[in-house]
């Protein structure tokens, strides 16, 4: 036995330190936030500000609206971020969790195309045209007034909030299947990057992700045109507007409530505006 004394001592030491580390992480009060990459900038900036004046540790992770709602319903997160409402299907499945949504801001979804396509003259698309593209009936930009180039149709994962809002507008069905798809992406960042890398892509993005490499086209049909601008959104003239939500299981309590109140409060709403969205209490816009 004597020969192995060092080994045993080492083992005991290892276990004690390990336990110490584990219990320390459990003891500090934490708020876990998971979900939509559209809401993520708001949550993480707010968390930074909030933690500056509080002992609570807030962890913010991406994953998408579906992941956010599922995680909070199953108790793996305290707050779920969702850039859409809770779907009827989810409501039925997670009845027991008594999910509650708290709107923290408003966002609009744009139909975006690669810069090359935009500059070649595609500035406007009707829902019928977009539907044709996503169903694989329209395959060349030529057919919608663009250059003679095949369309790279970029879709998003099916549970994503941005996709729900976009497909609801185009097809009237949030979970529409789209056989014309050539690529599937996940987060806003991923979709933005893939559209920017291509020179003939179409996709869907939250307004806050539009930049020089990805251009938004105007929507509408029958002579009506809805420009993809915040002004149009504020005046209620843009068709794809959705609420950005925090989701909790039941009424929020303690630190979770404090954080949600913070984001809904004046400081948090300033962050919402800085992140490129519209604050909930914006006077001009009431959907």
């Amino acid at each position: 036995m004597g020969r192995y004394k060092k080994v045993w001592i080492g083992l005991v030491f290892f276990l004690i330190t390990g336990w110490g580390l584990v219990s320390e992480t459990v003891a500090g009060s934490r708020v876990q936030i998971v979900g939509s990459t559209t809401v993520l900038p708001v949550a993480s900036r707010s968390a930074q500000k909030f933690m500056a004046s509080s002992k609570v540790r807030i962890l913010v992770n991406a994953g998408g609206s579906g992941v956010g709602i599922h995680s909070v319903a199953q108790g793996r997160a305290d707050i779920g971020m969702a850039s859409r409402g809770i779907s009827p299907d989810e409501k039925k499945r997670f009845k027991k969790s008594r999910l509650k949504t708290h709107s923290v801001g408003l966002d609009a979804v744009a139909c975006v195309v690669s810069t090359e396509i935009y500059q070649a003259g595609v500035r406007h698309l009707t829902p019928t045209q977009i539907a044709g593209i996503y169903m694989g009936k329209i395959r060349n930009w030529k057919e919608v007034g663009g250059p003679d180039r095949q369309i790279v149709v970029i879709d998003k994962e099916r549970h994503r909030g941005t996709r729900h809002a976009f497909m609801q507008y185009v097809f009237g069905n949030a979970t529409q299947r789209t056989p014309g798809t050539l690529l599937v992406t996940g987060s806003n960042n991923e979709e933005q990057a893939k559209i920017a890398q291509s020179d003939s892509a179409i996709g869907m993005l939250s307004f806050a992700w539009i930049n020089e490499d990805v251009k938004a086209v105007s929507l509408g049909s029958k002579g009506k045109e809805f420009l993809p601008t915040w002004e149009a959104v504020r005046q209620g003239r843009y068709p794809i507007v959705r609420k950005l939500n925090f989701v909790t299981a039941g009424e929020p309590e303690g630190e979770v409530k404090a954080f949600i109140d913070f984001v809904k409060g004046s400081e948090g709403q300033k962050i919402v505006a800085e992140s490129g969205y519209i604050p909930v209490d914006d006077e001009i816009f009431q959907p």
Partner: protein
Amino acid sequence: MKVARGNDFRSGLSGIRSLDPAGWVFAAMNLVFLVCAVGLGGFLLVESVPVVRSEGLGFWLGENWWVGETFGALSMICGSLIVTGLAVSLVLPVALSGALFTSEYLAPSLRRRVKGVMELLAGVPGIIYGLLGVSFLTVGIKDVLNLLDGNTLFTAGCLLAIMILPTVLTLAEDALHSVPAEFREAAQGLGLTKLQTAWRVVLPQSLPGIAGAVLLGVGRAMGETIAVMLVIGSLDKVPGFNIFVAGQTIPSKLGREAAQALGSEQHWSALMGLGLTLFLMVAAFTFLGNIFIKRSSR
């Protein structure tokens, strides 16, 4: 035969009686490994029962993966096979010639340095390759081959080939280098040139080791998640014979949907079914590889 095996088993365990404490620790660790391996297989099997029960063979033969309705994994199975096959066929000529050169032609001091670099590269995590792939490879392949888009099965295969190259190279080189010097001397004594020695004597001798190296590469390529996920396009579609379109592999599908499926019964079970399929595919490859090794070493 059976008796002989029984004896083998008993004599294999006979060491246990005379174990000292350290030996017991080793034995316990061995048990940990055994429990892990069996536990993993068993877990996947049990978890995937619901989806196989509701889909039957359609789980492996169905083309449609519609969450909440039906789960068919054919497009991911095809994607995995295509991407891995592509990676291995791209890597084999490069790895073999590189290994032959390093082992047979390079001076010992240079060889050590080259080996060091290879082993360093073999340890680079998949995400690094993935990021390089998504920023350079997809764009490059699109421009060079004049494709509609660079996120394709072909891109994923190329990326995996680059990724497994150091592993296959260094292991194959080990196998070549471990061929005893007497063989080379004898061959040269018979008047064979250096090339003939390497090709006709050293290479056949080390074939089992090289096969092992390739198998390890196959395993890594088949299981790679993040690097593939970033460049493959993630489209659930059976690709047919065109490898220049977006697709999906089993791990990339798992990576995309795992977080969403956690806790939901059927969807989770379907993902576990995918995991089981991958597990069996890798096992089958290893098994076939072992048969090949046995054959060729005879």
